[in-house]
């Protein structure tokens, strides 16, 4: 029963309503759009199936693709009533799960308005394994695939983690709104993309805009004045929380709760490399991200301002005494961090989708990475992210996919018990 209710309201509305627990909103919870296609993917054993891709299009040229969320729910806003072609990408269903009637993958539907729910019956069988996530008969290929996915995911996380660590290193600030810098970067690219720019052109422009506006600008407007007023670090941390909430729900307000894709490369055909299947976009993005990571590391190690960054990380007072302009270093670091975060966000948006809480979803994974690698260290962020990425993917062999993140968070807590400074951190940082 509750699944039906859940499906009937968009995930966002439900989250807000249930969080506030206010019944009065219920009366006013009408639909944000004239018509919405909703539905749910639930496996025969009752578990929700996330990340199933579904595409809706009509003769007038409307087309939108969405993926089911962690609850297996999806909602696609429609421009209005009419006849729509609905296509479920069966390749995105988990192994061992198939449609009861294969014809259901592609159907035509008349929508009059309001919320139209489509029913999708799933059965076990066809394609792969057939056992429900049992780990006893894991094939080598499966492990290779997960390792590969893990490294790719880790590279994306590393972009975010590196920026977080650079800011932490130079200012001591644990930025709880760093995940939302990913969201801002991705949605900047989305605006440009929807304005007509090809994503290949939109992405670099968005990264520059995000770096200047959300990095340099944020430091200039908010953090620099606060440092001047000698605001305490805990107070600043709470401010990042407030900022995260403003960004997240601001994005939800302006862009709605439904996930969005970029106009290009949304549903790219997969390719096979030996035993591993992937998409060209994932490979190209991972390559570009690796270059960005290497360049950042070289910059920190070799360039004058990079060396100054490390000096400020070690001892701001001493660095300042040797003639380093600490504020300038911090401004550069913020710019770089926001740029890397925007890249990470666009990466996430291209390989999954753009949604208001995309940054929040990965923030804790980023935190797990930096704690594993060592809070404030440059190499630690990258190594930690790769380890966490691979770990998250591999644990899906033994625990349900929906609990992947739990494993990473659990390991983070264990790491803090054994070696709180992380793999590469130094003891005195922990204090």
């Amino acid at each position: 029963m509750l699944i039906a209710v859940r499906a009937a309201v968009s995930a966002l509305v439900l989250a807000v309503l249930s969080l506030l627990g206010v019944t009065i909103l219920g009366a006013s919870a009408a639909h944000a759009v004239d018509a919405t296609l909703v539905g749910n993917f639930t496996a025969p054993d009752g578990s929700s199936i996330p990340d199933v891709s579904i595409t809706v299009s009509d003769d007038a040229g409307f087309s939108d693709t969405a993926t089911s969320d962690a609850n297996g729910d999806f909602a696609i806003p429609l421009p209005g009533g009419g006849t729509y072609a609905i296509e479920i990408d069966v390749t995105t269903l988990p192994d061992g799960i198939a449609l009861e009637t294969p014809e259901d993958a592609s159907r035509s539907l008349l929508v009059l308005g309001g919320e139209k729910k489509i029913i999708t019956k799933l059965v076990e069988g066809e394609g792969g394994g057939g056992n429900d996530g049992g780990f006893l008969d894991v094939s080598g290929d499966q492990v290779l695939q997960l390792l590969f996915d893990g490294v790719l995911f880790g590279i994306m996380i590393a972009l975010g983690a590196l920026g977080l660590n650079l800011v932490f290193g130079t200012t001591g600030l644990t930025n709880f709104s760093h995940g939302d810098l990913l969201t801002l970067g991705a949605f900047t690219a989305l605006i440009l993309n929807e304005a007509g720019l090809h994503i290949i052109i939109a992405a670099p422009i968005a990264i520059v805009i995000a770096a200047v506006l959300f990095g340099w600008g944020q430091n200039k407007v908010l953090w620099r004045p606060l440092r001047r007023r000698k605001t305490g670090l805990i107070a600043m941390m709470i401010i990042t929380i407030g900022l995260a909430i403003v960004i997240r729900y601001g994005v939800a307000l302006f862009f709605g709760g439904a996930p969005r894709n970029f106009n290009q490369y949304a549903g790219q055909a997969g390719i096979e490399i030996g035993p591993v299947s992937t998409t060209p976009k994932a490979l190209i993005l991972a390559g570009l991200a690796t270059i960005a990571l290497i360049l950042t590391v070289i910059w920190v190690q070799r360039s004058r301002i990079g060396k100054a960054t490390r000096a400020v990380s070690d001892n701001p007072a001493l660095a300042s005494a040797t003639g380093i302009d600490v504020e300038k270093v911090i401004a550069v670091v913020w710019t770089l961090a926001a740029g890397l975060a925007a890249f990470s966000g666009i990466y996430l948006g291209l390989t999954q989708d753009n949604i208001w809480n995309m940054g929040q979803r990965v923030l804790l994974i980023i935190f797990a990475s930096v704690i594993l690698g060592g809070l404030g260290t440059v190499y630690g962020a990258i190594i930690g992210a790769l380890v966490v990425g691979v770990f998250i993917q591999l644990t899906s062999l033994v625990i349900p996919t929906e609990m992947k993140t739990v494993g990473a968070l659990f390991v983070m807590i264990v790491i803090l018990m054994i070696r709180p400074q992380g793999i590469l951190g130094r003891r005195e940082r922990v204090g």
Partner: protein
Amino acid sequence: MDWSFVLTQTLTQAIGIQAIIYCLAAIGLNVQFGYTGLLNFGQVAFVAAGSYAVGVIVLTFDLSLWLAIVVGVIVALVIALILGIPTLRLRADYLAIVTIAFSELVRLTVRSIAFKDVLGGAQGLNGKLGQDFHDTNPLPADFQSLPVLSWTRQDLWVVIVGWILVALFTLLVWLLVRSPWGRIVRGIREDEAAVVSLGKNVFAYKLQALMLGGVIGAFGGIVWAVAKQSVQPDTFRPEFTFFAYTILLLGGAARVFGPIVGAILFWMILAGTGEFLGQAIQAGWIDFLQPTDVGNIRFVLMGSGLIALMVFRPQGIFGDRRELALDAK
């Protein structure tokens, strides 16, 4: 535009069940953060523990609600130990990261399909969770409603007992912070090294503060489960904790009445803007917004309020700036 509806709804919510739940969570945070300086960003995990204790004991195991309350307190104590032992020796930001991660870990675990039989999965636990409590309702059976305040007979009983709980815990906190124990935890907040040099076991005091605050938070969860007769995993998102922080900082951290004033004001503002916007949109005064935007706007307002509070008046409305020297330790 129905002004009287906006007004009565605002008033009802300002001292309603939600305000009580958040107030209890904020009293717990006041012990942990306000007095002891522990940056616990995972208070919602304790609230969830209280709620789930009620849900599981009453619904899954079909036992008494009173037993469930005892279990809820014990679970909260255990969580505080699990969280506190590895992290309380570390710096404040580590505690913050680990507690927020733990609260998400709890939420993802309880909503998982793996424990669906016991914990109800993503749908949570729904049923006659608070029956034992509602059976004790002394209000006349033909009770209709109070003037102005639109509670049902059942809700009114929850509200009465809820505010009694708030008063009891406030009294407890007041007595504690005046005691030697309170002086030591405040000393830890101000200068940990100084307290260590006095030969006090700082770690033990921090752990006690975390446990006490956690138990008070768990009572918030118990009230929630009893009042709503339902436990939903996705209500226990990190945002809950940050609402509670906003309430605490609004009223004034390290002030005994801070959470109460904060909770009432917070819900007055939140409910007021929500009701007003909702009505204004329906009346067609604001045509660029949809009714579904109201929830988002309230979150944006709340986040902005939190930032403004910390920037301009970190001591809150009644706080004392000297009392609250916020800094990383």
